[in-house]
């Protein structure tokens, strides 16, 4: 191995000391099936003497069986992995390779060139500093080349090496190399990539890979490996904006409360002021703790534990930032998204967004456009299919501390997860903050307007007096359950029972709300959430007027019901779970809701293609499959009597 020479020079201890200071470079190799990518990687490993004898022997054996190079050693077989793929003679996934020289440790993300595997390329590119893009000198810049370049640029890679391979097959022609260089440069002007470097080479013959070779004296630049060893990537890191997403809270004993996490960007020092997002509470960094002892400062991407000077509430998913340089908290934002799943994007359907260390339900409210990655044209689109890229607008249930991806890879990226299958559906890069900020601004504006209304000063009658006047103790009963689980039956049965006993009550269900007040809302996740929020607000107003409210809404998600409880106020809020299995509800499908959902005519129907989270601890649990409506009504009445809400 090449290590031997260095050990001879430095002695093992000297060698270890030097090796310990080596940097790491992650790069991606991409090219079409026949561009010779596997051969290039094999050549790089082979010529830098990184291949063990036993592996070489096995490869020689495999060359005879699967190889495409006849008698010669097929270097491509050094890197191909899975059995089935090997038999098909292709690479189909991201494979990671490792090697080191005395300058750097390299991690190669080896990704395929097929049209249908864009997702793998995006995956590989997401962690890379540099991309090696192969072009077959005979074919020049192809649609594949543009596609790969676009995805690498989209994923934020700032350094490209355009490896013009198979120069041996074009007679080592300088003119051919120049043609390809010009063609690529024309195209790349539209990509925002800082550093593009061209190298003519032959992986098969080993020219300009590790060694210079003699066939292209007209090329004065460094061979590929030498370039990879020296390209400057350290300044790509964001050391300006302090972003510390809290991963885990450590409480080994009562005296210690530490926040474990990885610095997404920036530098943090003891004594630095920090703000906790989303709460906005402020404190100072009291200490930076590691297993190896306390340190004075930490920087991205270090994993450390921070303690704060004050007792502020911090939990997983929160982010510590510099108070004077905080990312905006946004509920909505626009992003470039690469769609991975065979299930196409459904605008309006509720997904989960995982962003830094937090997750939140979210819906895609708008598909702005799709990008034709072959020619970079924008095309109108209503959805995205597997391996398509588009610009979307998302609305999240909880605000995110988000930066634009161009400024911050770690806090500008997210993945979309399917709530039912748990599959990872897509990867997103936040492209714009402005639109999102507008939304926040608007909400903040209306919140400010709300704070100017001084009801307390004008009101001469209190909520308690109103209730007393009506001679009742008002409450809010929130009924949740699958569609057709029997929520409305209970609600209207109870309304009649209360009315007969002179108790003032109002029922709110989907039909009542949507026929007027919520006419502007559809059935997307965000709209359904808003529908419930308004119901909760009405219930709160009723409560203040002394009137009880029975809300009968599917309200499928625990956090949405929790929000309703917060709006109303916990003391008067009771959650009732109408429990019936999905099959039973589907059997009662009188108006064909489930049937239409199953037929694909309706989307985002709870139980079919949207999840239902049953309450863990409802105040009252009714079994509407086995018990009759009359029995269940009696249970509700008994429940209210127990709490002295009715006589």
């Amino acid at each position, binding site marked *: *191995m090449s*290590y*031997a020479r260095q050990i001879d020079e430095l002695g*093992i201890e000297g060698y*270890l000391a030097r*090796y*310990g*200071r*080596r*940097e*790491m470079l992650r790069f991606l190799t991409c090219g079409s099936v026949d561009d010779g990518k596997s051969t290039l990687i094999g050549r790089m490993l082979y010529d830098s003497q990184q291949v*063990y*004898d*036993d592996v070489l022997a*096995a490869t020689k054996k*495999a060359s005879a069986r699967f190889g495409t190079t006849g008698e010669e050693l097929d270097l491509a077989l050094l890197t*191909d992995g*899975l*059995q089935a793929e*090997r038999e098909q003679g292709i690479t189909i*996934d991201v*494979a*990671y*390779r*490792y090697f*080191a020289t005395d300058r750097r*440790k390299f*991690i190669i993300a080896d990704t395929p060139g097929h049209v249908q595997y864009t*997702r793998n390329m995006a*995956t590989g590119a*997401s*962690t890379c500093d540099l991309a090696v893009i192969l072009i077959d000198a005979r074919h020049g810049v192809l649609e594949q080349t543009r596609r790969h370049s676009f995805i690498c640029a989209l994923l934020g890679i700032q350094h490209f090496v355009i490896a013009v391979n198979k120069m041996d097959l074009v007679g080592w022609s300088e003119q051919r190399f120049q043609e390809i260089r010009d063609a690529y440069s024309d195209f790349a002007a539209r990509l925002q990539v800082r550093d593009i470097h061209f190298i003519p080479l032959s992986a098969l013959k080993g020219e300009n890979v590790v060694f210079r070779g003699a066939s292209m004296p007209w090329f004065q630049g460094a061979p590929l490996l030498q370039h990879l060893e020296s390209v400057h990537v*350290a300044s790509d*890191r964001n050391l300006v904006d302090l972003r510390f997403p809290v*991963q*885990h809270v*450590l*409480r*080994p004993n009562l005296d210690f409360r*530490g926040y*474990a*996490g*990885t610095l997404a960007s920036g530098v943090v020092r003891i004594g630095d002021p920090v703000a906790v997002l989303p709460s906005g509470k402020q404190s100072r960094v009291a200490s930076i703790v*590691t*297993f*190896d002892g306390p340190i004075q400062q930490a920087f991205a*991407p*270090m*994993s450390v*534990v921070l303690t704060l000077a004050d007792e502020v509430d911090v939990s*997983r998913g929160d982010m510590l930032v510099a108070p004077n340089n905080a990312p905006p908290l946004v509920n909505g934002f626009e992003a470039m998204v690469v769609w*991975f799943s065979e299930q196409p994007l459904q605008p309006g359907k509720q997904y989960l967004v995982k*962003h830094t260390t937090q997750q939140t339900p979210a819906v895609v409210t708008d598909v702005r456009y799709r990008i034709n990655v072959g020619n970079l044209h924008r095309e109108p689109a209503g959805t995205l299919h597997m391996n398509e890229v588009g610009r979307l607008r998302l609305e999240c249930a909880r605000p995110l501390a988000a930066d634009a991806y161009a400024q911050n890879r*770690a806090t500008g*990226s997210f*993945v979309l997860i399917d709530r039912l299958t*748990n*599959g*990872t559906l897509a*990867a997103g890069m936040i492209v714009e903050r402005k639109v999102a900020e507008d939304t926040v601004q608007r909400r903040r504006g209306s919140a400010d307007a709300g704070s100017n209304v001084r009801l307390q000063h004008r009101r001469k009658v209190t909520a308690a007096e109103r209730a007393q006047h009506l001679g009742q103790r008002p409450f809010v009963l929130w009924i949740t359950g699958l569609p057709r689980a029997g929520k409305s039956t209970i609600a209207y049965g109870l309304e009649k029972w209360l009315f007969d006993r002179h108790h003032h009550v109002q029922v709110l269900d989907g039909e009542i709300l949507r026929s007027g007040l919520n006419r502007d809302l559809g059935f997307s996740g965000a709209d359904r959430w808003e529908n419930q929020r308004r119901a909760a607000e009405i219930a709160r107003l009723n409560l203040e007027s002394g009137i009880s409210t029975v809300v009968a809404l599917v309200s499928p998600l625990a956090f949405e019901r929790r929000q309703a409880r917060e709006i109303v106020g916990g003391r008067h809020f009771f959650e009732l779970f109408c429990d019936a299995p999905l099959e039973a509800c589907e059997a009662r499908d009188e108006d064909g809701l489930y049937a239409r959902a199953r037929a694909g005519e309706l989307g985002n129907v709870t139980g079919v293609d949207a999840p239902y989270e049953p309450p863990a601890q409802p105040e009252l649990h009714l079994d509407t499959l086995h018990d009759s409506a009359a029995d269940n009504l009696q249970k509700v009445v008994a429940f209210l009597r127990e709490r002295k809400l009715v006589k």
Partner: protein
Amino acid sequence: MTTYALSHLQQLEHESIHVIREVAAEFERPVMLYSIGKDSGVMLRLAQKAFAPARIPFKVLHVNTTWKFREMITFRDQLVKELGLDFVEWINQDGVRNDINPFDHGTQRYTHIMKTEALKQALEAGGYDAAFGGARRDEEKSRAKERVFSFRDRFHQWDPKNQRPELWNLFNCRVAKGESIRVFPLSNWTELDVWLYVHRENLPVVPLYFAKHRPVVRRGGTWIMVDDERMRLEPGEQPETKLVRFRTLGCYPLTGAIESGADTLPKIIEEMLRSRDSERQGRKIDYVEAGSMEQKKREGYF
């Protein structure tokens, strides 16, 4: 002057800590598989670092085939005591009852019952939804494509065509009941990185890694150690004493030693750097057929 630069070892360390914390934060019942080898040792140290000053917040599990080197078990028990680990050992008792051993039942069958099956039993018994393993991508070709978070179905099976995309350091930690994730925090480490880290951290390792005169027999082109009286000698085999050490550790009848005089860490590293054979060469299991590791992984092997 601060350069705000990390060496590759530091960077690997911080990335692995991130992975370990993410699992601890998102899964209900994670467990760390501990195989007593150098990689497991590094992983355990990273877990300590991830949660210091708190304790490691999950159990540490050793699947014992009952054919491990005696020195491994001694080392293990000592380490468990020193670190105060929440430790569990699992042995496939069906296998013990049927006296499953590598001599009568062949490497494949023995490994399947005492390792793969035992592991599944242990994971099911513990109700674990995430299991850390010390595997590295550079160990073997089919590993090169494995995710850091490797999704397994209810039968612990790995489907190379149905793995979740893994971008940045955003890991999808959601699983349905019965499904689980195998997590490999050392994915991006190489054998050299592991030894350099052992050296840097001054981590204790099983003495078998260091050269010593040991009783061995020549078998299948490698040296097999006669570790206890259960070792069956074939006709004509005569134990002899050789100065040997092990590059990987496992079940003694299946683990080949190399002739070596490397009796310190720097010497081991130097020997490895000058060596022309990969570390798995000493493991008999990989050489049964090409792609055998992939086959085992599909069945639920780590």
